[in-house]
């Protein structure tokens, strides 16, 4: 396998959204997720000389991000321990409370399996998006994921509406094929 090279000037365009989605499903907070992605890029720059080129750039960035997420949880858990309010039912009055209901699982909650599956699906879609030509990926993200109006995208990218639909069509066809190979076959 040829040695991989780092190209930090393209990191934001290529990996920012992918890393952000990876993070948001784990920390559930947009601002924290943005900060962790930013920190990952900076840590990547700092340790660029340690990159041996055996793994893909993205895999390497993900491994840094994983450590950042673990550090984040360590930090908040150490803070939380100090200010934790323990719930206990030690006296007779408390025992009359609806303690049983507080401990029942919420039936409307997504179960862990659903969450995991949606998360994996998100990653599979992102990976397929990365394989598309940049313009197709851009248009698809703006139209489908960000829900922008056709007119606004056309103005921003300086294309006609019929041009946009041709690009959307190509992107959707490529994504369907890619997901068929990477998602439905593994399901």
């Amino acid at each position, binding site marked *: 396998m040829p040695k991989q090279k780092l190209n*930090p000037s393209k990191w934001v365009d290529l990996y920012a959204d992918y890393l952000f989605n990876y993070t948001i499903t784990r920390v559930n907070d947009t601002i924290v997720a943005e900060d962790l992605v930013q920190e990952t890029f900076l840590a990547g720059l700092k340790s660029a000389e340690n990159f041996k080129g055996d793994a893909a750039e993205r895999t390497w960035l993900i491994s840094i991000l994983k450590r950042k997420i673990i550090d984040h949880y360590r930090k908040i858990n150490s803070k939380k321990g100090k200010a934790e309010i323990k719930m206990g039912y030690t006296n007779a009055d408390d025992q009359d409370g609806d303690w049983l209901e507080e401990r029942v699982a919420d039936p409307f909650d997504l179960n862990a399996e659903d969450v995991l599956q949606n998360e994996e699906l998100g990653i599979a879609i992102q990976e397929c998006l990365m394989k598309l030509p940049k313009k197709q990926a851009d248009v698809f993200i703006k139209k489908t994921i960000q829900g922008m109006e056709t007119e606004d995208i056309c103005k921003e990218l300086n294309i006609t509406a019929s041009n946009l639909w041709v690009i959307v069509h190509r992107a959707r066809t490529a994504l369907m094929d890619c997901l068929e190979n990477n998602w439905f076959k593994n399901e």
Partner: protein
Amino acid sequence: MSNKKNILFASCEEAKQICDKVQYGEATFIEKMKLNLRLMWCRATKSYTKKNRNLTQLCNKAEIKTLNPDKKEEMRKNINSKC
């Protein structure tokens, strides 16, 4: 070859493009009618429509998010200043 579109009958390619518009709720009444007419007999359009609908459902289910463009710009500047 003429690029003129038929008022009632859509070609396979045109039908697929209408199907894309349907995914975003942007097909006109006439376009939907043309697509439905073609769906009655064209297997390729039927198969494309099914896959296309699937893709829309998957994208909705995955709830993919994107970073704010300003934040991306800030990150770009940060990286470039340290490169």
